[in-house]
Each structure stands twice: as C-alpha cells, then as structure tokens.
C-alpha cells in the first residue's frame, strides 16, 4: 500500500516580525521548518506503517529548492521516498493553483511508478497561510473522499478508521479508500529521526518534478496565472490600545477598585 504525505516548509513562527515600512514579513534570519501539522500527518502515516511494514510512505512538497531540507527531514523520520515539485512556473500560486500542481504531480508519480495512492495525508493547515484549503482542494481534484482535523487513525477492512476533532469534541469516522485526510495535533508529537535514518536521508535522492515532467498539464492553472485570488496588501494587525493596569503587590485595594469599575460601567450586572 502507498501513502502520500504532502508537506510544506514554512518560516519558524516564533520569530515573525513585520517590516513597518513595506508592511510585509521580515524574512531575513528567519529559520525554515517543516510545517508542524504536516509532521503530525507524517507521524500518522508512520504509525500505519509500524502496524504494516509493507506500506511505503512518499513525501511530496511544492516549494523552492530549499524545501528539500523539509523532505529530508521527513525521510529521516519515516518517509521512504521524497519528491520536490519545483519550477518557476509554479511561483505565485494561490491555494487553488497549488492544489492543482500537487494533484498533477501526484498523478505523475503514480503513472511514473505504476502505483496508486490509497491514502493522501496532509497537515490541516500551513502555519504561514493558515487557510486549511489545499487538502480538501486536492481531494476534490483527485475525486477522493476527505476527512479533516484527524487525530489518530488505523486501517481495517480496506477502510480508514480515523478519530477527528469536531467543534464539540471528537468523533470517529470510517472512510472508504482511496481518501485524503488532514491532521491536527494529537496527544503525541511526531517521532524523532534516528541517526541511521538521518544518515541515509542525507544521501537519498529526492526526485525533482518541474514543468518538464508536467508537460501534459494545463499551465494556465498554475502560478500567478492560475490563481483566482491575489493579495492586495498586507498590514500589521491593529491591536486594541492597552488600558489600566494595577499591581496587587503595590495596591492591595486593586481588586476592590476593579470590582467597583465593572459594576459602575455595567460590565458585570448580576452575580449568583
């Protein structure tokens, strides 16, 4: 059985700063990491493989050449093969164009290797774009059933039994294969890379797929050309301006004063 995991390399969120002049993100000195939600998707695939070692895990990323590092990280953790979809023709893609490129790449890999993917796993969203759109859009393009916000899963009777997060709690669903699942944070972190796997990963060959390989595809649906949405502008969020801060260590009556304020201004009007 073959599982494809879609991953993205994203900036490390802790260090995000906005350039006040251009109103865009400062990219210098910001490290790149494997999107954390994609790590959970890979771990879910890895656990299926732990239960059934015959499963092969393929990691695919669309990005600039440096995204290769994220793919090697996936190989070091659990993936068997890595693929990088990269080409200038892909640049400027919004989620729809990205989903198209990824679906076409997935089809290409299947044809080229004579396999078909029973499962496609993705992180629920990328922590830069935060849209959570690419997974479901790929499912649509490939005509697959989709499950989102997955936590843990297992295979049984040719179905994927998966627990997912809902607005009220959790539910378990059974989905027919082939299907696409997006993952959110479960109660465990992705496995660490072992030294042996890391050494092998550093030497592994990552297949590069570009415009040449996707010649049969529709280039009008890629890149800027293929993007229905465009960013008009970016700006720093306007935060509320802070108000009054009191310190209980310095003013023992602080809480009493606050209670008075809340009552006077009808912010709290009843108590039990």
């Amino acid at each position, binding site marked *: 059985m073959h599982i494809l995991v879609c991953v993205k390399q994203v900036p490390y969120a802790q260090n995000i700063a906005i350039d006040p002049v251009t109103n865009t993100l400062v990219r210098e000195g910001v490290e790149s990491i494997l999107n954390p939600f994609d790590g959970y998707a890979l771990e879910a695939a890895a656990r299926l493989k732990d239960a059934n070692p015959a499963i092969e895990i393929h990691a695919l990323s669309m990005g600039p050449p440096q995204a290769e590092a994220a793919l090697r990280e996936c190989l070091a953790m659990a993936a068997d093969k890595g693929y990088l979809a990269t080409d200038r023709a892909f640049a400027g893609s919004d989620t729809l164009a990205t989903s198209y490129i990824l679906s076409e790449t997935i089809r290409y890999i299947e044809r080229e290797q004579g396999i078909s993917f029973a499962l496609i796993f993705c992180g629920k969203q990328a922590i830069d774009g935060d849209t959570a759109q690419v997974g479901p859009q790929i499912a649509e393009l490939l005509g697959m059933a989709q499950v989102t916000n997955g936590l843990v899963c297992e295979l049984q009777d040719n179905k994927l039994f998966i627990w997912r997060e809902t607005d009220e709690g959790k539910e378990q669903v059974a989905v027919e294969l082939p299907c696409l699942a997006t993952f959110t944070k479960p109660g465990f972190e992705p496995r660490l890379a072992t030294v042996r796997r890391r050494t092998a990963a550093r030497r592994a060959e990552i297949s590069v797929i570009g415009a040449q390989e996707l010649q049969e595809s529709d280039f009008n649906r890629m890149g800027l050309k293929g993007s229905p949405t465009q960013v008009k502008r970016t700006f720093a*969020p306007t935060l509320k301006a802070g108000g009054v801060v009191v310190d209980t260590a310095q003013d023992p009556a602080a809480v009493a004063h606050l209670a008075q304020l809340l009552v006077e201004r009808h912010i709290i009007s009843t108590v039990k």
Partner: protein
Amino acid sequence: MDNPSRDLWVFVETNQDGTARKVGLELLNPGRRLADQQGGKLVAVVLAEDTTLAVKAVLPLGADTVMTITGAPYRQFNTEVYTAALCYLLQKYQPQTFLLGATSNGRELAPRISSRLQTGLTADCTQLHLDESGLVAWTRPAFGGNIMAEILCPKHRPQMGTVRPGVFKLPAVTAKRGEVIAESFPFDLPLNKLQVVQVINEVSSLVDLEGAEIIVAGGRGVGSAQGFQVLRTFAETIGAEIGASRGAVDAGWIPHAHQVGQTGKSVSPRLYIACGISGAAQHLAGIGSAEIVLAINQDPNAMIFKIADYGIVGDLFEVLPLLAQELRSRLGSASSETTQYHV
C-alpha cells in the same frame, strides 16, 4: 461562470435537528450590506431534512430570498452530498459572492466547492468590504495572527469566503419578509463514502463560546486541570462560559472544545477575562472582537496587558475569589453560602 448576477449568497448551516447554526445568521449582517453595495439580492441557502425551522430563523433577518433543498440525504452534514447540491445551485443561479461560516463543516465544504467551481476562496475572514473597484476585499489573519492580508478575487466567480462564528453580530430584525424558493437536486446524489462510527462530546453542558456574553479563559498560568475549577467557580458566579488558551489545552487541562484563538474559536463577548494567559498573537487573533478585555497575570510584562482594557498583576487564585467577593458585596448576592475555592 459566464454571467454572474450581482447577488450575494450566504450558506446557513443547520444542525441535525434542523435548527440554524448561529454563524449563518450572523453572516446575513455583512451579507445585506455587501448585497446592497453590489446592487443585488441577499439569498440565504439552507439544506436540511426539514428546512422549516431554519427558514423561520432566517426570514426576519433581512434575506430577500431563502433557497432550500429539503430531504433525508441532507439531515447530517456530508461533504460529498452538500458539495454536489450547492455546486448545482451555484452553477444554476451564478451569484456574484458566496459566504459560508468557518465552522468545522464549513471549512470542509468551502474549499471543495471552490475547487469544483475553480474559483477563489479566502478563509477565516475578519472583515469584508467592497474595494474601490467593486470587488469584495477579504481581510484575514496569516502567520498565526501576526499579519493581516487583504485578498481579492478579480475574475473568477463566485467570489467565496468563510467567516468564523462571532466575528459579526446578528443583523437586526426587519419587517420585510423575503420569498422562499424550494429547489431540488435533479441528479443522483453521490454515494456517502464516510460513516460516523462514534461521537464524543467533550463539552458537558451546552457551551456556546461563540455566543457567550462573558468568557473566563485560562492559560498556562492556571497550572493544572484542578486549577480550572477556580475559574469555573468564578464563572458560575458571574454567569460566564469557560475558555482556554492553546497552552492550557495542549497541557491536557481542558478539552479542545474550549480553546480560543487562531486554531480554536473566535469569540466576541462583552467581557473577556484572561487568567494566566500571556497574550500570544495566536490567542489575540481569537479575541479581537471582544468588547472589553480584563487580564489577570503574575507577569507585569505579559503581552496581554498591552491590549487589555483592565489589567491586574497578581495571582489569579487570589484575585478571582476576591473579585467575586467584591462583586457580590456591590451587587448583593442572594447566596448565603461561602463559595469554596478548591485547587
């Protein structure tokens, strides 16, 4: 779409019992404004086994038309079925703009529809307006709430966007009543490839964070699951719902259903009390619509104090019981029992 109208459609999601989920009703608010500016009608679309209740809720809120598809296949949300039915309607009527609530179902449905119709979708919008060229300008947070982006969909139709519950308030009731159009899906519905096996609700009572007027939320400063009991006792006193930051949820002290923030719920209470929450951008992204923020934290340098209307530097385990006492003495509590604060 070759000939889109000027109409704006809002998907009013329903619960299994046929009641309308609040977010769809909230979207009729910006929906009306934008439909007027676009020069078209405001249309609400409802899919349910029995659409009566939802239609009743929608009609007084200003929609010109309520479009319904009724039937057993629509009782429970199912991506394949809902996508097929909605795409059929959207292709038949060709609205200019389509809004959906960014609920967990909405976030399944919207990208699927946008992909099938090959149109642009902007998720989790916090503001909507028409820009100078008459296009919808969709404003949304990115990078965990650290930056805001304004997105346009210049050519593809419908222009689509999802909005989180609580971002907009319900529209005012109007005297005018729109018309109801009962539609139907004329083809075979797609097979259901997904079966629900088990459901676990982690929210004990009917928690509605998105509709709550007062929320008491706890972060890492609460320190433990037991610590949340102090917040619960205080919340009961003032009639508040319980929320939590991602830090508290990740630590396993409270279920995810209570999480507020970028990867949780967006809330718009009259009063948001943040206890032991540092105020990371991801959390602030969820409370942007709160009217008043009160922060209690031991760290005077916590980010939350920069945006709080009132801040108390102190130990929440001391402040909350004391505050409850002070409020009671001013508002006259009927209770003669002293509340026990156990940690």
